[in-house]
């Protein structure tokens, strides 16, 4: 992708899901319960390597390389968390509800464009990130070459002098084999915070 200042990319031409596709992707993520067959033992280390690399690329602000790890039909979703009584009958996650991220790949490109513009003053000097990913579980799905992944993460951010935030959460991914690597096709990020105890989510998850 081009993020040069003079040639602004036309983000309208970037890959974008229709609303129906996004809803279907959300339904798929909600239905992921980790009940399938675990992937073959030989595959798991490759999947782990993929996620370790992803974390490192994000730590190092190598956003364009990270962008290449995302499938064109990406659905990237961070629903809101609400405090509700256990007896509450409403579904906990609904793709039509307000969310913190509800993105196609094109929207990720716009966010990378913000950083690449060098006009985002609040990222200059840059924020320092450390991602930890752990507890990776991988399962077969009904589609050959697509895997259901569950894992936990910690994202620590620090900028300026005393400005620090630590977000922990869980992710569910639909990971697709592409040649000798993978791409993220669906991602659901679940933060446990109902009130975000930080001022923003100026980061990728």
């Amino acid at each position: 992708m081009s993020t040069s200042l003079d040639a602004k990319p036309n983000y309208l031409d970037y890959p974008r899901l229709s609303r129906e596709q996004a809803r279907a992707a959300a339904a798929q993520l909600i239905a992921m319960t980790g009940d399938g067959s675990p992937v073959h033992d030989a595959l798991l280390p490759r999947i782990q390597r993929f996620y370790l690399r992803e974390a490192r690329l994000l730590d190092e602000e190598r956003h364009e390389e990270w962008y290449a790890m995302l499938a064109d039909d990406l659905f990237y979703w961070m629903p809101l968390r609400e405090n509700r009584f256990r007896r509450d009958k409403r579904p906990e996650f609904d793709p039509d509800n307000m969310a913190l991220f509800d993105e196609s790949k094109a929207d990720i490109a716009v966010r990378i464009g913000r950083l690449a513009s060098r006009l985002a003053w609040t990222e200059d000097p840059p924020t320092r990130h450390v991602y930890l990913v752990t507890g990776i579980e991988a399962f077969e799905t009904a589609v050959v070459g697509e895997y259901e992944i569950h894992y936990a993460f910690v994202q620590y951010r620090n900028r300026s002098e005393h400005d620090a935030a630590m977000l922990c959460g869980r992710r569910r991914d639909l990971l697709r084999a592409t040649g000798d690597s993978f791409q993220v096709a669906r991602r659901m990020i679940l933060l446990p915070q109902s009130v975000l105890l930080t001022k923003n989510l100026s980061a990728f998850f």
Partner: protein
Amino acid sequence: MEKNGDRAVTPTAADWVDWEVGTVDRRIFWDQAIYERELERVFARSWLFVAHESQVQAPGSFVTTYMGEDSVIVARDDDGIAVFLNSCPHRGNRVCFADSGQARQFTCNYHGWTFGLDGALKRMPKVGLYKSTPGFRMQDWGLKRARVADYKGLVFATFAEEAPELEDWLGDFRWYLDAVLDAEAGGTEFLPGGATRSVMGCNWKFPADNFVGDIYHALWTHLGGAEPTLGRHGGVQVENAGSYQVSVNGHGWEFNDSFLGNAATMGDRDLLRYMRSRQEAITARLGKFRADMWGSVASATIFPNFSFLPGYFTFRTFQPKGPLKTEIHAWTLVPKDMPDDIKDRFRRGSMRTFSPSGLLEMDDGENWEHSTSANAGWITRHQRLCYAMAPGGDLERNDLPGIVSAGQLSDANQRLFYKRWAEMMDAESWADIPVAQPTAGAKVDA
């Protein structure tokens, strides 16, 4: 407090704010004693936004929120919407821990006192202990209720018995509010899923004064966020020709006549096409002047801490959590009769611009945090801040209600926000707080 002979001299809020020249003492963003007085004299006296009626539509539906630092429950019973303290009068425990839901009653976890949807005490375990207590009356121990009123779907409440009616509190600001609340027939609603909530280490007045009249910051702060959607330096078109600031009782709105200037930064062509398709009908409904405000480059605050942005239609409260901490609660408001697909585009568009993950909001928080934290320095906080910008002066337009100034690039509304703040801080009672007399309505386009 300084002693001057026998006379105790306490600085008044009018000393903190020179609204005519436009300077503000930085201690009002830092001082704990001033903050405590704000809770008493600003928040406990104001009509505060508590919910959109669409959040509490069915009988038994409720949300919890805050009025100042007071936790409250907003519940719908058969008689309407009631607002009452979310703190048990028995030992003070919080009564309802859910953000929203359906309930027939609210039961305190501590001893099991149970309250109705109107806040009244209904029953408690081993009630006989109280029945045999001389002088104990159930009706004395309900959850304290607030006055409740609404304006076109927005529900406000106050615990101040002596406060004027909501319609007088909003006054002529209602005429402008119709540009977002009554642009389409059928009323408005908040999109579902609850509020996005986040915490900032800033004083609540910085975001409130930003929304009341600071479009100036957008030209610089938001360059990075606007660049990817609208192109470098082309993102935000703001001029003083064809734009205004208007203030009524400290509420303020700065706006231009671009109809969809704010909305354009969401970068969704289908959404803009839809908005254009509605321009003629909205113009017929509101007149050209207010129709042009619908989604224009604009921001507004309803005093003290309820703000919104036309075009993105994000509505948010800046909940005070001490002088150095503010919680932002944000919702997206849309006309009820808007097609579902367009509502969904606003849901995603407002999220991507003005939410904790929003490309534009992400740039704001750090500014407000450091405008606040810098005041740790004793020398620093004794330097007054500059709210002096006044390029256009007051505008003599008797066809527009409120105090109108020419040009949205100005500190006019912010000066009047702090004037209102000082009036409320210094007033001994509500009787000492001036309220602008509502006029019959504006003549423009009428």
